[in-house]
């Protein structure tokens, strides 16, 4: 019950945050030099043609009117018409949302799957060979440009070993998993480089706590202590690192989308900014904001699940 009330109140709190974000997104776009109509007409028309198109697109109306229209269209769920695609922004976003969610979701699952075993090994073999190898490999993975790492993996796993497709999004859930494995793996490597370090230090810190001695004293095996007591306590800080990083990944998949030809939101955002497609950028900003706040909510709920001492209010 407390959990439900907490979730609802957090969702209510999101509304003023989102309104603030719409205002910032709206104003930033108008401050940015470059005009959608003159970009569309380019060299092909005269100033009169540009003015006519601005009028058709409603760009000559007062700013507050344009903002009110944007809010109305957001409330209606359509987010207005994309200037470049001439289709409702929500339709554009709906088409691209699934690939991005699959990609980020799979990347997060892979990151967790990589992090836990490797962090435990690192902590238990602290400053010995396994720890040093893990540290070196992941620091290298984090420092490598993602597009380069992506292309290396395509060369090895797709062209040489024929294990994965070269690119694309596939169809059906299994097809998505197969097609998105390599790109998600590249993202997961970057995430795990952070989470392994964070979890490793937490494990080391927790290991010296008195309740761990108690656990051993009551006769638990090392493996049971690790699972029930150390990992559970150490994971709390890693969940927040993972949450913050996943929020960042959502807006930062454009490079990976481009290398692996995934029709996701990142590519749409970059193309829309370049075309000064006001409606599309505004709609995307709101959708990204919703996703990031949703992840932060999920992170907080995750604490409560892992650590019963955390009180939600």
């Amino acid at each position, binding site marked *: 019950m407390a959990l439900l009330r907490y979730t609802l109140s957090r969702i209510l709190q999101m509304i003023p945050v989102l309104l603030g974000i719409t205002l910032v997104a709206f104003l930033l776009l108008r401050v*940015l*030099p*470059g*005009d959608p109509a*003159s*970009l*569309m007409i*380019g*060299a*092909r*028309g*005269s100033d009169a*043609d540009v003015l006519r198109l601005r009028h*058709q697109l409603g760009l000559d109306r007062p700013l507050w009117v344009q903002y009110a229209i944007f809010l109305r269209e957001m409330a209606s769920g359509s987010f207005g018409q994309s200037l*470049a*695609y*001439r*289709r409702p922004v929500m339709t554009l976003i709906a*088409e*691209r949302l699934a690939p991005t969610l699959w990609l980020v979701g799979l990347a997060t699952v*892979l990151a*967790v*799957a*990589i992090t*836990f*075993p490797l962090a*435990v090994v690192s902590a238990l073999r602290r400053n010995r060979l396994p720890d040093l190898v893990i540290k070196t490999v992941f620091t290298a993975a984090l420092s490598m440009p993602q*597009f380069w790492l*992506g*292309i290396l993996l*395509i060369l090895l796993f*797709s*062209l040489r070993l*024929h*294990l*994965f*497709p*070269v*690119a*694309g*999004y596939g169809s059906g859930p299994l*097809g998505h*998993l*197969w097609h998105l494995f390599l790109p998600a793996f590249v993202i997961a490597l970057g995430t795990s480089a952070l989470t392994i370090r964070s979890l490793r230090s937490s494990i080391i810190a927790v290991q010296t706590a008195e309740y761990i001695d108690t656990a051993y004293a009551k006769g638990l095996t090392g*493996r049971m202590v*690790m*699972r029930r007591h150390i*990992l559970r306590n150490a994971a709390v800080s890693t969940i927040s690192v993972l949450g913050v990083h996943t929020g960042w990944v959502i807006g930062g998949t454009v490079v990976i989308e*481009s*290398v*692996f*030809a995934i*029709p*996701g939101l990142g*590519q749409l955002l970059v*193309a829309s*900014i*370049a*075309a*000064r497609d006001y409606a599309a950028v505004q709609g995307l900003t709101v959708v990204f904001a919703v996703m990031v706040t949703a992840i932060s909510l999920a992170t907080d709920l995750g604490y409560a699940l892992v650590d019963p001492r955390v009180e939600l209010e």
Partner: protein
Amino acid sequence: MTSWQRAGAAALVLTAGLAATPIAARAQTVFKLGVATDALTLDPIATSDNPSIWSQLQIYDTLVRPKPDGKALEADLAQSWQAGADGRSYTFHLRPDAQFSDGTPVTAADVVASLKRAASPKSQWARFFQPIAGMQATDAHTVTLTLKQPFTPLLNNLGLFSAAILPAAEANAAKLPDMPLGSGPFVVKEWRHGERMVLVRNPHYWDHGKPYVDEADLIVIGEDNSRVLQLESGAIDAMINVPYNQMSRLKASPALRVGSAQVFRADFVMLNTKRKPFDDLRVRQALNYAVDKQGLVRGVLFGNGEVAADAMPVMAWHDASLKPYPFDLAKAKALLQQAGLGAGFSTAMLVPAGDAAAGQVAAAVQSNLAAIGVKVALQQIETGTQWDVTKKGDYQMSISYATSDTIDPDQLFGFLAVNPERADAYHTFWQSTKLNDLYAQERTTPEGPARGKMFQQMEALLHDGAPYIFLYRPTTTYAYRTRVTGFAVLPTSNWRLQDVKLAH
């Protein structure tokens, strides 16, 4: 093993196992073309991006179309046409057998409705068709256009994608359907935006026997290197825009063929002639002598292009005897000396951000000009902003390029060299009254050698006036697997997928 480890290992095994899933065999022939960017729209009059243009040319027909060599027009929906002796009328005779992809015949009424739509205020391309004063469907297969005064570029404009012929019912509707009907070689079967456009052959296409393939897929792969990898793996059959530095490697591959098409594009550095010292012809010419353009063609294009004598691409009536400014530092220094700038000067150049080639050109031009004492500060600028900044005249030098939508040099001369016209000689604010006069004259002169001579004079005036540092004309690179024949990038940068054949 912890439960996390077990779950992770299971996921790995599961995912790897999927790789063995066989791909269903197809009896149909499918040609897959890797492109860098998806189309935005299928509405011809709301189109300003190349990917939309290239897709639309597979779906719609126009009355006339450029020949594959880009030098003249040929019949498309109109099997023949006559221009009136006074240059004020054109009569088009439609192919009696032309049909839209649903089997309904293409009639003169469809042509009139489509051209009216293209000339209407809601069209971004209205200017190209507004010289038409009257449109008449004389009978079911004859269309007559009348003009107030002769306007020679009109015929070429009718070969533009924006003059695509749609069914009258769709052209007259308030809103065009998302997937309009066309009479071109292909029909859109499925469009997964940002991912692929699936085109299937139009069984009613007038050019019987074509297209040779049952299906042509335009697959969007944004990253150049990924596109190359997909081609090498056989996931796609052909691709456009091979990175220049990979051309020789792909050429050596026995599974692939490469092509380098001379397209209508020229690259240059715009000079703001309203600002000192670029108002001085000697300074502008000195800059042209000081840049090693041959070095740029070698270093930036890896030989995929040629040095340009002016800002025009090689189009109809181009004068091949016009020679580029040679790389001559002594001459450049002497000209600066005459202009009273023997000690050089400091200036700034806008460089489009995110364009690797432009970045390389900027660095090369900067070091070339340093040799004659001209210090150039480089300013990265986002391309959406660059247009507005140069339009306001708020710059000194700016790296840019021009491409042509039509095969008639008229359009680009109007943009690059005529002031004011549409863009104040592409924001250089350079003006030549002689060139302006020739432009006005050329537009009312019937197509032929006399008009060609005018274009050659205009090109020479542009070369001599040097409102730009003329750089080079790059080619468009492409590559395809050996089982493909008939695929080529045309001078207008598009391709005709109806000519593509696949060997088994």
